[in-house]
């Protein structure tokens, strides 16, 4: 920053992530609308008991939709969080930690979600 130019190459905000954020954001809206329609208009009586949920997951489209939704939301949320953290202007070292942390958190929660969906499907 000595002379006003900070172009040390690092994976801060970039074209790819920006585009991905808008894309996942848009897809989240689309899937959310489908999710709401299916949950509240097509399924009779909602999903308020365990048996209902398990029955709901027997249709193979549902787990696929839910997993897609999970991946999109987690990606979008963590990229958004990263944007907020980047505005704190972390040093390269801290940024690397943030990147690893977010990737681990993201993959972890996606794996957990998929495991959960498979458990529920398996109970049918």
């Amino acid at each position, binding site marked *: *920053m000595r002379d006003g130019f900070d172009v040390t190459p690092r994976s801060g905000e970039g074209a790819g992530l*920006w585009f991905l954020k*808008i894309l996942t*954001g*848009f897809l*989240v*809206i689309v899937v*959310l609308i489908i999710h709401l329609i299916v949950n509240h208009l097509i399924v009779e009586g909602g999903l*308020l*008991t*365990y*048996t209902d*949920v398990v029955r709901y997951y027997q249709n193979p489209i549902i787990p696929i939709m839910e997993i897609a939704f999970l991946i999109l*939301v*987690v990606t979008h*949320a*963590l990229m*958004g*969080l990263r944007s*907020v953290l980047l*505005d*704190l*202007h972390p040093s390269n070292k801290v940024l690397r930690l943030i990147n690893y942390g977010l990737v681990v958190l993201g993959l972890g*929660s996606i794996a*957990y*979600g998929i495991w*959960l969906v498979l*458990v*529920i499907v398996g109970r049918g």
Partner: protein
Amino acid sequence: MAEHPQKPANLIKWFDPRNKSLGSWAFILNRITGLGLTVYLFLHLIMLGQLARGPEAYDGFIALVKNPIFLAGELLVIAAALIHGLNGIRIGITSFGIAGGKQKQLFIGLMTVAVIAIVYFAIRMFTH
């Protein structure tokens, strides 16, 4: 030589809407709802873990969330999602250079939709 006045602590000034234009309100709202929804996402994933623990745990959990405090929380999530999503549409299209000059009208329009939807969901949730 005088120092640059910026520091990460200025972060808090983001959330100071005094003397700011509509665009900043949108930015502030988007940040707050975004962070809130991220927290909710992980809480939600943890809560859904109850499904794995069998019928009793999950049905007990559903009984718990039917009380008004949880319903209010749920309404907050719906409101945040609506605001963030609709504002996201605005940011998305203006980011591609579409309707940039109309961003204020767009914001007012979309937020009107959000408010109507929030009121609708509130009435629906609390009268059932």
